[in-house]
């Protein structure tokens, strides 16, 4: 089990103490208890969204949902290190990142309810819509960073991907390009120990962070269940990119406590003991314990946070049920941004076809 703090950056231990021995403390000197309570709230709300969405899926309101349970600190800690102007290219599981970017929770559901292929306008939040092709987004992030570099802006792009994704050629190629051109991009790998049913050991015999050096960029391994440590290392990486010193690879060691998606049954391939062990390192419980010890988290504060979470969840549910089904002819929208004689013809055809049914009797049922 790679939970030995010697192997990664950790600022708050699994049982909620804060030894303050890490050099990375320097990156979070401005983070007071109030801010930590805010991160605690982020994580509680994000988990509540996750639970609600899972319930919506169980109730048939969503076709699928990819839970982030257990990865709240990795996502909140890194996303809260970003500035508004930065740009995120993530996979499908970064609901916590999306929340921190200000994306309304209901927008996360559109894809999984099947009403659209993406939930928001990327430019409104500095975050691309979810990427399903494993690893593809790491190249997009690198290209975006090259664009920022061309424009002499100090915007950084951040890409999220999983442990499994590190095996895809695209991720290696992204590291090659990023390194060669010193692109201002942060590679944020959430090593949640599983790629569906495959343990991380199948993807690599070596710690994933070690991939970085061979591609000519610094690598940092961080306790992904420690929101403060994640914030610190991400800040460092962002700062490096912003000052023109190129990419960083961060391996956030965390755990996917739930199934891969709601369609998955992890009992088929992993031991309950492993899950139990990781439950001891829960990112929320840990920060809660620390903040209780400092006195910043009282029952009253916790109660308010729970209320917020409940409100967000209730809004999410209401919003989900209110999502309108798309119109049939929207099929043809936005495939091209300019007129297209082939598709325009198909649209016309289909519109006339649909119109027929308005006046037509109902077809007799098929006996199949």
């Amino acid at each position, binding site marked *: 089990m790679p939970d030995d703090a010697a192997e990664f950056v950790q600022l708050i231990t699994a049982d909620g103490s804060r030894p303050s021995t890490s050099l990375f403390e320097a990156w979070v000197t401005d983070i007071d208890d109030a801010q930590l309570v805010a991160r605690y709230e982020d994580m509680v709300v994000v988990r509540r969204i996750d639970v609600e969405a899972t319930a919506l899926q169980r109730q048939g309101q969503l*076709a*699928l949902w990819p839970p982030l349970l257990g990865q709240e600190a990795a996502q909140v800690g890194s996303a809260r290190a970003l500035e508004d102007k930065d740009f995120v290219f993530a996979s*499908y599981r970064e609901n916590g990142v999306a929340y921190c970017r200000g994306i309304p929770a209901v927008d996360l559901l*559109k*894809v*999984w*309810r*099947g*009403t*659209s*292929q993406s939930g928001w306008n990327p430019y409104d939040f500095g975050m691309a819509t979810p990427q*399903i*092709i*494993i*690893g593809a987004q790491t190249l997009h992030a690198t290209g975006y960073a090259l664009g920022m570099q061309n424009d002499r802006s100090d915007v950084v792009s951040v890409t999220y991907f999983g442990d*499994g*994704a590190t*095996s*895809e*050629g*695209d991720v290696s190629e992204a590291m090659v390009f990023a390194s060669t051109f010193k692109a201002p991009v942060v590679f944020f790998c959430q090593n949640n120990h599983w*790629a*569906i*049913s*495959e343990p991380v050991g*199948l*993807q690599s015999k070596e710690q994933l962070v070690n991939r970085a050096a061979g591609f000519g960029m610094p690598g940092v391994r961080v306790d992904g269940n420690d929101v403060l440590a994640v914030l610190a290392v991400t800040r460092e990486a962002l700062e490096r990119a912003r000052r023109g010193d190129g990419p960083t690879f961060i391996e956030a060691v965390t755990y996917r406590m739930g199934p891969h998606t709601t*369609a*998955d049954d992890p009992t*088929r*391939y992993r031991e309950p003991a492993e899950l139990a062990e990781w439950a001891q390192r829960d990112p929320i419980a840990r920060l809660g314990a620390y903040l209780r010890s400092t006195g910043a988290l009282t029952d009253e504060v916790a109660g308010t946070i729970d209320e917020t979470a409940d409100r967000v969840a209730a809004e999410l549910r209401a919003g989900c049920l209110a999502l309108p*089904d*798309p119109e*049939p002819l*929207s*099929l*043809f929208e936005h*495939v091209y941004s300019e007129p297209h004689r*082939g*598709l325009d013809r*198909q649209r016309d*055809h*289909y519109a*006339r*076809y649909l119109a*027929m*049914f308005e*006046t*037509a*009797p109902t*077809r*007799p049922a*098929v*006996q*199949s």
Partner: protein
Amino acid sequence: MTSQVMTLSKAINAGLRQAMTDDDRVILMGEDIGKLGGVYRITEGLQDSFGERRVMDTPLAESAILGTAVGLAYAGFRPVCEIQFDGFIYPAFDQIVSQVARMHARTAGAVTMPITIRVPFGGGIGAAEHHSDSPEAYFMHASGLRVVSVSNPQDAYTVIQEAIASNDPVLFFEPKRRYHVKGDVELESSGQGRNAMDTARVVSEGRDVTIVSYGGLVQVAVEAAQVASTEGVSVEVIDLRSLAPIDFEAVANSVRKTGRVVIVHEAAESGGLGAEIAAGITERCFYSLNHAPVRVTGFDIPFPPAKLEKYHLPDLDRVLDGLDRALDRPNSLSGLEIS
């Protein structure tokens, strides 16, 4: 003859098991195919029976799955690669079209590539993006490959074994929407002579018009034929099975009889299989045709979100409308005509 009722997915599983039992050079490779048995459980139980070396969970890298399969074929193995979903085959495109497809020709026949590539394909299951593609046309255009698809448990059982036994590389397209449909399977129908894989099958005979389809839409074609028959139209339904090469003899025989044909598939119309089928039929049956071949296909769009797929995918009504057009009659439902 042992016959058994099973689902299409179980029939593939049984076919794989049989092929692995018959030939110990057959090995399976893919993501999550071992302990999990694949996200569709097609390989369920096989790792238990044949071990981790013959049922290999691979790292997440489709190009590598196919590229290492090439090396394994060099070494005398018969790899069966699972691509988890249709939309994830593209990272392996180079290895498939430049290596798998061409190695035999490149080496003047010295090296064979008996590789089977299993691809769950198509829509109709309410899935997320990249989980409902129909990429078969890309591969039928890539010389050196064979491409097949199945529509029922019996063919699934037989054809997967024929594909594995073939010394040529075969893309085996599995219609996800039909995985759970049951049917009778003769378990002894394998091994004896190759024909299911190479030949089209006449699903139901008819006189007035032919429907050519494959994979997940054969059933829709059959339903359309039933409805049409209540309207006095006799429809012949052909299940291609082999998409490359196409059994044009079987197709042309039917169209010469009926003089009319509707081609049905999920993939985009432009450059889809329907184009090749229509062109091939016209070349062969020009003087028998009473109407241009009609295509009823998915639109030329990226596969749409789940809530829209029912509009995108050819369904009973659209196939019936296609039949009406092929028959030069107004839409049998609305009485209206669209050109």
